[in-house]
């Protein structure tokens, strides 16, 4: 863990009055390794280290702590600051407020759609779930069962529907029947699938959502940046929900995605049950990433 292994490295820096390029170089290399171990993107880690270096070099070491401890403190502070700026709530606009969930295969979109529906329906909002994944076997069924479980309305495909024709029908229904929220679940797709990305863009143009949310598995590694960039270019991301944070993934993808695209971080998924959705806590995430 960063804090443990770094304490050892930094102990060697004891007894120096000022942080210099030289005396923190080895330490910063260790930090870079720790960030990589936490799945922070290679380039994002380099940039982050550079910012820490610029901030630290020339600093007087505060009384009562070692130079190493000071660097660690700066790293933690900088990370909390960065993630803190990333924290945002869902944009509550329009009626119905419209959410489009997008992401890679298996990231947790369908489950997250139901979690959001449950949360907002408990706030006395009239929610419509739209099952726009017409591709995966039993995907519509999956969302229907979840909708029934939480007592929320759901609209699925009619014979001959494409995701676009279903979405168009849902837009009309949501307006006509005065829903407060409409949540669109979409099929998983790869960032390298140009055809499916084009379909996604078409869906976005049709639905005109207030929120386009990337649902991303917290255990994703170095490809997180590229994935987020492609989805952002395609559909204009307004937020990120990181799922499966109940595992032991360090979650560096959160930092990577925000640093690379500016995408705000909205919430985190912490389990398979429909209540397992929590607000995003920057300080907890910083501690988790730094281990």
């Amino acid at each position: 863990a960063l804090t443990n292994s770094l304490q050892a490295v930094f102990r060697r820096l004891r007894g120096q009055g000022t942080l210099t390029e030289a005396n923190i170089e080895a330490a910063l290399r260790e930090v870079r390794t720790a960030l990589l171990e936490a799945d922070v993107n290679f380039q994002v880690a380099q940039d982050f280290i550079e910012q820490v270096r610029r901030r630290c070099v020339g600093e007087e070491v505060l009384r009562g702590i070692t130079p190493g401890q000071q660097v660690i403190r700066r790293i933690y502070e900088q990370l909390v600051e960065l993630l803190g700026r990333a924290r945002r709530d869902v944009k509550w606009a329009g009626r119905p407020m419209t959410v489009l969930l997008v992401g890679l295969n298996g990231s947790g979109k369908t489950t997250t759609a139901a979690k959001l529906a449950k949360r907002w329906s408990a706030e006395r909002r009239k929610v419509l779930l739209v099952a726009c994944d017409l591709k995966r076997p039993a995907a519509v069924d999956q969302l229907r069962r979840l909708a029934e479980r939480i007592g929320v309305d759901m609209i699925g495909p009619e014979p001959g529907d494409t995701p676009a024709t279903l979405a168009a029908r849902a837009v009309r229904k949501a307006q006509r029947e005065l829903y407060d929220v409409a949540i669109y679940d979409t099929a998983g797709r790869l960032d390298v699938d140009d055809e499916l990305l084009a379909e996604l863009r078409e869906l976005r143009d049709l639905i005109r959502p207030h929120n386009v949310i990337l649902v991303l598995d917290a255990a994703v590694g170095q490809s997180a940046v590229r994935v987020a960039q492609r989805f952002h270019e395609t559909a204009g991301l307004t937020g990120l929900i990181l799922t499966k944070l109940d595992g032991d993934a360090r979650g560096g993808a959160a930092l990577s995605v925000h640093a690379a695209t500016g995408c705000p971080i909205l919430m985190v998924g912490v389990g398979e049950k429909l209540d397992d959705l929590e607000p995003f806590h920057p300080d907890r995430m910083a501690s988790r990433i730094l281990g």
Partner: protein
Amino acid sequence: QRGAAPEERWPVERVEEALYAADVAPSLVMEAIERLGARREGGVVPQRLAEHLAGLLVEPPAPGSVRRPRVVVLVGTNGSGKTTTCAKLAWRSRQTGRRPLLCAADTFRAAGSDQLRLWADRIGCDVVTGATGADAAAVAFDAVTAAVRRNADELYVDTAGRMHTREPLLQELQKLIRSVRKAREGAPDDCWLVLDAALGRNALSQASAFAGAVPLNGAIITKLDGSAKAGFVFSLGRELRIPVLYAGLGESPEDLVEFDRRRFVRSLLG
């Protein structure tokens, strides 16, 4: 041994960038650079790097005589691709004229068994299911019994996704394995871990936890048709001696290939 022309060498920075970007463990990256004398020799010959990396991967054991029905249990974390991979394995079996049976032992997740049932229809093979909330171990037991009775060639058991950090869920899996063993001695013949190619360092934690709970003897990497390079496989080989058997390259039944160490490394290095 340099020939007539000096071999092209990749500088250390390029090696680091290529391997880190591919999710190769930092310790293995540094070890590769060290072992190949990169700093001393001003770089690494890509061919030698490829050989070094391929050498970290464990070859699957020789087929040997397999029992009939061959009972295979697929395990892994949520959304990794287990259900789809079960369908692909059954499809592959059908292609060679064999008779597979499927078991939908995911009795937990909404539409978990419906998903596999639909695949079974498309592929043209039978599937043993249970009611939602039914005991997964009991469904697996019934499936093994059915596979024996019907003289199936293989039985592929799909299990519910689970977080490897949840001890009670690993125990549930152990109960399923015991139940399968009761239905037929020596079963399961195989227990394979399904891992998403986009995973970072957590892949090793997942593999280690599952290997500690069940008799894991192979891994399948799914979604390798994406931009992620699954560099964690080197850690699977080096740390856990787990061979990668197949790679998933898409969402259709035919999108499964036998894992080829050399081709994988070549494509990773680009």
